């Protein structure tokens, strides 16, 4: 049997808040297989953002072990974490986080710049990705010249650049209207069918329903982990 893409064991994350110690993660254990499409849900304070930061290689657990695509996150140095984020993770943010001075195409190229990819190859790949997300005609536009949905598509193209093992999306529809949000979720489903492993962090149960699997968190623990019966279109 193939090793899971993500294997987390007894993850604990503590924060010192003045006198108090907060258990953002209080012993979390789960596995995510390659090709999965998983939603992590829970109210604010449930620990889902902390979990996402650790999954994305932005933070390290206080104790426990998490291996993503063969890398033990706790054992990586800052520099190795940067390389890990660059090669293994594709981030999609609620507020898009596109650089306003760069064109849409240049934004997509950004992770490949930090990978040191050849400019010609890089540009060709970015153009392919822009077409893939349906923005083949808008490559030279600045982010401010694009609608919210288009900006999020650019961000998704950027997340796909460099063929990361995991697409990590934090409330990807949070800043979009309902219809546009649905289009973005449809794009995620398509990408998943093409083989991408996707983890969406959200508090919106409708968004979670679009995924194949839902992990629900509360007070730093997983309270429910189920395969979704009905898949949204």
């Amino acid at each position, binding site marked *: 049997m193939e090793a899971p893409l993500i294997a987390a064991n007894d993850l604990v994350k503590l924060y010192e808040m003045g006198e108090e110690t907060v258990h953002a993660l209080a012993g979390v254990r789960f596995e995510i297989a390659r090709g999965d499409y998983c939603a992590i849900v829970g109210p604010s304070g449930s620990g889902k953002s902390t979990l996402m*930061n650790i999954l*994305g290689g*932005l*933070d390290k657990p206080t104790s426990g072990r998490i291996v993503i695509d063969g890398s033990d996150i706790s054992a990586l140095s*800052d*520099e190795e974490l*940067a*390389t890990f*984020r*660059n*090669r293994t993770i594709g*981030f999609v*943010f609620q507020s898009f*986080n596109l*650089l306003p*001075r*760069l064109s849409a195409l240049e934004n997509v190229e*950004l*992770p490949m*710049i*930090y*990978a*040191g990819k050849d*400019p010609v190859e890089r540009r060709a790949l970015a153009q392919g990705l822009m077409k893939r997300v349906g923005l083949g005609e808008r490559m030279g536009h600045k982010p401010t010249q694009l609608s919210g949905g288009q900006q999020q598509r650019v961000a998704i193209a*950027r997340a796909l650049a460099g063929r990361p093992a995991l697409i990590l999306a934090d409330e990807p529809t949070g800043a979009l209207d309902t219809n546009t949000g649905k289009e973005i979720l449809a794009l995620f489903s398509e990408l998943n069918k093409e083989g991408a492993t996707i983890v969406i962090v959200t508090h919106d149960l409708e968004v979670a329903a679009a995924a194949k699997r839902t992990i629900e968190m509360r007070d730093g623990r997983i309270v429910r982990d189920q395969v979704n019966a009905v898949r949204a279109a």
Partner: protein
Amino acid sequence: MMRTADLVATAANALRSNPLRSALTALGVIIGVASVVAMVALGSGAQARVQQSISSLGSNLLIIVPGASQSGGMRMAAGGDTQTLTIDDAEAIRAQFPDAAAVSPSQSARAQIVANGLNWNTRIEGATPDYLIARDWTVEQGRFFDDAEERQARRVVVIGATIAAELFPNMDPVGETMRINSGSYEVIGVLASKGQSGFGMDQDDIVVAPLSTVKRRISGRWRRADTVSQISVKATSEETLPRLQEDVTELLRQRHRIRPGADDDFTVQNLSSITEAAGEATQVFTYLLAGISAVSLLVGGIGIMNIMLVSVTERTREIGLRKALGARQADILRQFGLEAVTLSVAGGLIGLVFGVLGAWGLTTLADLPLVLSPLNAALAIGFSAFVGIVFGAYPAWRAAQLDPIEALRRE
């Protein structure tokens, strides 16, 4: 690993996005470098002028004056009535040392001269024909007096360019007569102009007459007939000059019967050492000017640090995003460092242009030679790059240290 071309493009893009701010930030360095370049050029110009005018007194020249030197040998004129040097001393030097290419004893006096109904008070220099060679004079019109005229104490004079202009306006002075005190003298030559000396004296304000003539007819108040106020000795070359200075000193000590250990009763001045001393003084002046200007460069550097810190704060989200996408600390450090260095080096180059223009303007105003050394220009640019690195380092380090989670959360 980020490619260098991408790093440069990223930094340039950031600077272009706010051109006014970039220009104002660079302005501090522009002013700093411009003033350093202009001030150093001004100082070097003054230095060149001083050396030029000192060497116009005569090259490879020893000037012997009566009276003891004070330590350091910079004393220019010994006390008034000391009369320890004689014409015989000069003859002895000429006879003994083949390296003395020209030896001229001379006696200075001040006198009132009159010609064409015009009055002038000037320096009369009684000298021998060697004076022309020793002091690097050239005769522009007419001729210099010869040995026979000197021996016979003839009433002939050679005049400087200033005298010619003041007393013989719009006419050829050669063959004219002038009165010195009550005697009448024939002008036989005019000296080519030398301009001002390094000490601000007009060297052309001079009348040169045979030494015997001056001793007998003009400076009669001297008690002894054979004393002189100065002996000029020209060495055959720069190399023989120090040796000649030692030999002359030794000879004069013997002739004047000075016991070992006792002070000399004369002073041998070496013009090249005077030139050196004056050069050092103006060098200090140059350093002082450059130092004051460097302070403004320092202030420019602090301006860069200030703006870069503001820029890091403003671009916190951008930095967080770049880190999330895989930028390493070194990548962020280099990007912000390069922005600071680009600002300071661009400022340095523009400042260099303004500095050269300023130097040209100042030296033209002050009537000094324009001395621009490539070394100083390279130094100014190098220093501005250094300023960029030093003052850009802290903001860049701050940017590199940002926690991406915190940075992305910032609105």
